[in-house]
């Protein structure tokens, strides 16, 4: 793999293992290697970064003799999926421009202003989706030998970036979008909101799904929090053709916003049966 686009680095590693002469040696070794895998991977990773940094610095100084002066460095720490890596980033002063140059940053993109690497948090995101950020933190804590885990707020903040990559809406290029998903269902529920830790009232969480056939797999066509059915209807109309059949729980705004002139609106019969006693109650019965 030695070509111009690849570097090959040889690392020599000598490991000394002192072990007790004991019947439970197997389990002692398992635990020791579990702890060691984090140390070994992190040490090798740091050694590779230091070698790359040294090479970049040497190349820079060789190509411009006398131009760069050593200006110390700064320690950076990263929490990686296999443990913590710590490296002293070397700093050079460019005498011509007066700017500071970081040799390692010239050859690779380093994660800026984050300590926890995205890949280290990834196993926790699934549990955050299923259960809670608190449980997700506990799961991450149990995965590493030193029991370190990000705080719940770090996990929550970093999850926002991950979740922004998840789009439940269908790909516009997927099939014939104009004629797709003519069988639609719409519903909503209330959700309590907060703003900067203070109560921000209640908003409507709304969801529109559709299928290609009456009982086909469902696809999310729109979802929102705090938006009116009219706004949702406009977005759905822009994106998809008119619905053939719309099923809803009987909320008056839904057919008004989502049903076109040729759409057949079916009221959910479960809700219809449940709603009749309430209508009678409103009339004083």
């Amino acid at each position, binding site marked *: *793999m030695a070509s111009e686009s690849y570097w090959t680095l040889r690392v020599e590693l000598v490991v000394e293992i002192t072990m007790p002469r004991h019947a439970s040696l197997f389990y002692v070794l398992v635990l020791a290697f579990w702890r060691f895998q984090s140390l070994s991977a992190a040490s090798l990773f740091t050694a590779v970064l230091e070698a790359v940094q040294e090479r970049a610095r040497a190349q820079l100084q060789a190509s411009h003799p006398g131009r760069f002066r050593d200006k110390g460095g700064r320690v950076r720490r990263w929490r990686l999926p296999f443990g913590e890596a710590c490296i002293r980033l070397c700093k050079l002063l460019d005498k011509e421009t007066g700017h500071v140059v970081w040799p390692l940053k010239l050859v690779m993109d380093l994660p800026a202003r984050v300590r926890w690497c*995205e890949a280290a948090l990834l196993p926790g995101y699934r549990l955050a989706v299923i259960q809670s950020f608190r449980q997700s933190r506990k799961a991450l804590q149990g995965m590493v030998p030193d029991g370190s885990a990000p705080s719940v707020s770090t996990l929550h903040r970093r999850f926002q970036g991950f979740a922004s990559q998840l789009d439940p809406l269908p790909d516009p290029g997927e099939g014939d979008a104009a004629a797709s998903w003519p069988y639609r269902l719409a*519903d909503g529920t209330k959700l309590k909101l907060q703003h900067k830790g203070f109560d921000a009232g209640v908003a409507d969480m709304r969801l529109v799904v559709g299928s290609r056939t009456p009982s086909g797999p*469902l696809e999310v066509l729109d979802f929102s929090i705090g938006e009116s059915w009219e706004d949702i209807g406009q977005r759905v109309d822009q994106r998809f053709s008119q619905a053939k059949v719309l099923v809803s729980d009987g909320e008056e705004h839904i057919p008004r916003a989502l049903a076109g002139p040729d759409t057949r609106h079916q009221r*959910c019969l479960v809700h219809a049966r449940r709603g009749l006693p309430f209508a*009678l109650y409103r009339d004083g019965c």
Partner: protein
Amino acid sequence: MARLDPGDRAALQDLLAASERAFAEIQEILPEDAFPHTRRYVLGLIEDGLAYLRHLLDTGEKVLLSTNRLESILSRVVLRLKRIGRRWSVTGAIHMLAACLVYALHPQRYAEVEAAVRGEHCPGVSILITSLKAAWST
């Protein structure tokens, strides 16, 4: 209603007419000044509650009679989002809603995003152990 035969048009028409008649009778029984909400409710049911039968008569196609399938998705999302004392920022709730929906409906899309974060499509780095020897020092 789900067991109705779409080919038996006469039976379907009879059922539709009988249902409409029944709703109209209920409406007539209820005086407008005493039962304004109930009357409006029943009137709505004549239009929207029988759409299934009309669609079946026109197209021979059986559509859904309830929102149960959507409620099933919503219940999975609500299980995560709604709990006593739990409040969300709008952005946080939107992101969690999107994540829950993708996780519930498109697990393969969720796995693809995870794979992208893990860098599975990045140019490969090969790490080989070229020599491994063990020797006793004591």
